[in-house]
Every structure is written in C-alpha cells, then in structure tokens.
C-alpha cells in the first residue's frame, strides 16, 4: 500500500471501499513497526483505540452513512497532549507511567471528525527544546537526513508525518516548536493565533504562549485539521469566540496583489548563506505570483529571544510546580514531605527542564522581578506592537523559519544559549500571539530542508493558509 496518503485521498478511498479504515490503520502500524526503531518518532501506540475508531468508520461506510471530514485518517499526537487511557509522558521520566483520565479538546474533536489516533509522538521534555534531544526517551532522527535532528520540540510529530508514519499529526508551539521541526523535516506546519485552538488537556509549559497545531504533507491537509480543531471551548477561557471560517475554501483565493512585508531584521548576521539563497528564491516565487512585496522594519526583533526566555521560563517554573510526587507521576520516598518534593523533582526532571525552572524561579524571585520579568512583559508589548503596526498596512509577513538548516545530532547540546538563539525567527510571533506557518522552500544540496515562514495578523489564519497554498502550488517547495 502507498505511504503517500493525503486526507482527501484517505477519505475518498475509505468512502469508495478501496480500502477499509482498519486495513489502513494496520498498514500504518506495519510501517511504524518497520521504521520506528530507527526514527524513535513514536513513544506509545494506541492500537486498541485506533482499531475501535477505524471499525466505527468502516461501519458508517457499510451502512451508507455520511462520513465525517477526517474519516479514517491516521493521526499522531504529541506526547504533551492528553489522551484518555493512553500513556502521556511529556517526554519526561516524571510522567513515565501517567495515564490521563480525559482527552484534550483537540483530540476529542479529531476523533469526533473521524480521525484514527495511532499513538503518541516523542518530543523534548515538557516541550522544552529545539532539537528533540531533551527527551528522556532518546532523540528522534530526521527522516530526510538521519544524522540530523528533526527539530523540536515537536520532533516526533514532524518526523512521523515526513516519514509516512501518519497522514497528519498534532504538535505544540511555544516558541517555534511546530514551525521549526516542520521546516527541518520538510513539511508544512502551522500554529494558529493564541486562542484559536483550545489548550484544554495540553499539559502546560508556558500558558501565555502554548498553542496546539497541525503537521501534514500539504497545506490543504493543514487547513483541514485546523478547521476541525479550532474554535471556542468552554474548558479553555482563553479560547476565542471568533467564528472559524472555512479555511479550505478561503485558501483558494488568488494571491495577486496580496501585500507582503519582508522584515529586514530577519535576514541579519547569523543566518546560513544557503538558507538565505533558498528563502530569496522563495521570495521570487511570491513575486511571480503577483504579490506586492515591500521591505519593512520590525524594530524589536533582536530582543525577542531575551524576552522569550524570561517569560517562558517564568511561566514554566510556576506550571511545573505541580509535579510534587503527590497526585501523579514519580515519587522518590522520604520521611519528610519537603525532602520528598525535592528528591522527586531532582530525580524526575531532566537537565533542560531543571535549567529552565532555576532560571524562571530566579527571574520571578524577590529583588529580580522588576529587572527581569516586568521588563520582559514590557518588551513583549513592544514586540506585539511591531506586528500590529506592520499589519495595519500589510496582509502577511514572510521570513525564514530558522536561520540554520537541520543540524547534526549532538552538535548543540552543550551550549544552551546557542540552542536558544536558533529560535530567533519563530519566538517573535509566539510572543505577539499571531498565527504562523512554515512551508517547505527547497532543500540545500537536495538534502537539508528549508522552511519559509508566513505570519498573519491575529485570527488571520485564512490569509496565512492562502499564501502558503499558493506558494506550494507554484512549486515553492522545490526552489
């Protein structure tokens, strides 16, 4: 059976009985069995749940009933997103045996739309990382270049789709954790606006930044999944009541005359020369499509990493206080309660998580709060204002997704600051709350994928998808 399925292809094949949803799931599990030992993309498989859902879809077909939009589509879920009855580790030893008693809203919506949840994908511990090397369960290999990282933190979700081990997947993005692995693995990957997709059941890292979003092999499939998971959820008070438009219809609109800003600050020193060439070739494609390009300035771009590592670590130090050895997860016994907390957390968390808890606790502590946290919140406001100003005259902003191509496994693990700086083009949109997508924009030496990033204004997902789709259709993926 082919590995190159699209969502529409699956739905059509299942509806016309060319293949049953059960056969399709079995075929994906076979491929996972063949390749996962090498790639390490999946941590847990949910076969029982997947086959039960596949049988429900096959019963609909047999009964001549209408099929939901994702009927039979095999989907993988990042292991920081809760799945009822299916182990959810967050890539951490502290949750090695944790089985959530409920589903995240995004998962519930996917299943209600007919999707078949194959299993849970590897990621950096608590989504903290840019290479997937911070997982307690081992690194993931990049299917396009096995000696390289797949990006992070949603490395397993990106690798699973790129390797044909799922048709689509969910990841989470706090500072670039969907877009950067999408770029590194050569597939489209999208983060909606803050508030567009419910965070209910997403195990929190930094609550003012965390977002759930899809990976797929093409932009239309990304739009299909976004359309299913987006929308108001009473269980997440930050999810917006703004209506969810028909992304698949809107993305077909012609892009001629679309006003695109190219911020000068995203082509600064530190950018790989080969990445630059690909992005410039991608921009030529946009010109040929008749878009109106103009160079713009986003004055506070250079301060985004510093701001991000204050705010994200501060929120993480607070969110991760819940791992105390009492209600779930690991406990390391001691006769004293406080010593039990300390030992449990010291043993259960990995190096990067501890580093961020220490930094986050420090920037919030008495005497340093104003100098760091409050300052960070003020600069965050300036960065968000840069985006609002730009979008007062533009439809979208186009940048590289990452300044560098996928790097070698182990290359950056000893230098946290260098690893953080690799997020320089993605954290800005995270801080501002705007939607962003990474779409494939050629490969360096035919091997290392490059991603083009498109930002839209808050709740402007449709324009982002519209340009991404036009770019893909015009051959942007093979510049």
């Amino acid at each position: 059976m082919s590995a190159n399925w699209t969502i529409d292809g699956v739905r059509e094949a299942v509806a016309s009985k060319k293949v049953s949803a059960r056969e399709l799931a079995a075929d994906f599990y076979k491929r996972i069995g063949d390749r996962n030992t090498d790639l390490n993309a999946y941590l847990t498989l949910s076969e029982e749940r997947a086959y039960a859902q596949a049988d429900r879809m096959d019963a609909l077909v047999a009964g001549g009933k209408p099929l939901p939009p994702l009927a039979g589509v095999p989907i993988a879920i990042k292991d920081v997103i809760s799945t009822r009855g299916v182990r959810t580790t967050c890539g951490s030893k502290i949750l090695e045996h944790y089985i959530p008693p409920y589903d995240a809203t995004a998962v519930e919506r996917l299943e209600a739309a007919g999707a078949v949840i194959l299993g849970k994908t590897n990621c950096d511990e608590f989504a903290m990382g840019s290479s997937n090397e911070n997982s307690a369960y081992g690194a993931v290999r990049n299917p396009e270049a096995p000696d390289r990282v797949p990006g992070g933190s949603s490395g397993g979700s990106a690798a699973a789709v790129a390797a044909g081990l799922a048709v689509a997947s969910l990841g989470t993005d706090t500072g670039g954790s969907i877009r950067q692995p999408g770029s590194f693995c050569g597939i489209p990957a999208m983060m909606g606006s803050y508030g567009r997709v419910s965070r209910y059941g997403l195990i929190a890292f930094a609550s003012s930044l965390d977002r759930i979003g899809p990976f797929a092999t093409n932009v239309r499939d990304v739009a299909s999944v976004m359309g299913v998971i987006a929308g108001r959820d009473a269980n997440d008070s930050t999810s917006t009541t703004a209506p969810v438009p028909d992304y698949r219809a809107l993305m077909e609109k012609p892009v001629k005359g679309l006003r695109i800003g190219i911020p000068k600050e995203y082509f600064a020193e530190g950018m790989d020369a080969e990445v630059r060439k690909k992005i410039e070739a991608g921009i030529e494609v946009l010109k040929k499509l008749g878009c109106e390009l103009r160079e713009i300035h986003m004055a506070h771009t250079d301060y985004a990493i510093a701001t991000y590592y204050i705010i994200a670590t501060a929120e993480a130090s607070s969110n991760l206080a819940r791992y105390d050895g009492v209600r779930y997860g690991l406990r390391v016994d001691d006769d004293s309660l406080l010593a039990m907390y300390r030992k449990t957390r010291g043993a259960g968390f990995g190096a990067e998580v501890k580093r961020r808890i220490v930094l986050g606790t420090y920037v919030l502590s008495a005497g340093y709060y104003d100098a760091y946290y409050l300052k960070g919140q003020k600069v965050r406001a300036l960065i968000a204002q840069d985006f609002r100003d730009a979008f007062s005259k533009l439809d979208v902003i186009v940048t590289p997704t990452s300044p560098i191509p996928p790097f070698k496994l182990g290359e950056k693990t000893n230098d946290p600051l260098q690893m953080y700086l690799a997020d320089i083009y993605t954290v800005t949109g995270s801080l501002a709350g705007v939607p962003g997508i990474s779409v494939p924009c050629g490969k360096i030496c035919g091997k290392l994928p490059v991603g083009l990033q498109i930002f839209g204004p808050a709740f402007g997902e449709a324009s982002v998808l519209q340009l991404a789709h036009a770019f893909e259709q015009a051959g942007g993926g093979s510049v």
Partner: protein
Amino acid sequence: MKISRADVERVAELAYLDLSEAELEMYRTQIDEILEYIGKLNELDTTGVQPMAQVLADDQTADATLRDDVVVRCDVATEILKQAPDPEPPYFRVPKVIER
C-alpha cells in the same frame, strides 16, 4: 557575574529542586551566560510601556465578563486516584507533615 552559586542554591530551594554539586556549578555558569545575554533588554527604554499581561484583547474571549458559577459533575475521582503514587482512597497520602 550576574548570578552566584548561593543564588542558584537559594532558587533551587524555592523551587524544591535537589541539585547535585555538579549541577549547581553547571547551571550557575550557563544561567550566568543567559542572564548576561538577557541584559541586552536594558538597551531599550520602556518608560511608560504597559506590560503585556495577556495576549487576547477583551473582545476576543467569552470570559471578558464573569460567567455563572455552575456545578458540573465530574466522576473521575477514582481514575485520578489511580494515578497517585501513594493513594488511600478517597485521599492522597503524603509523608507526615506535623511533628508531635
């Protein structure tokens, strides 16, 4: 130097985090470098800038005003306790907190 070893020890204590000698020294060095980098924010004059306390504007969420406080039944207590390292239903058990 932005952060001392005593600072890291104090912060680890606040966060209830056991750190080894090697970890204390490694984090001191690495966090010092990160704080040095973060110091670039002081190049910016943020006088009069309102800190960004939330991402969405008031008219973008349903909860800009208070909702009614309604009790919704949620029968997951048994399942939740199953995840606890040391449950004694209907309680979570912890080491003794109060000394006689």
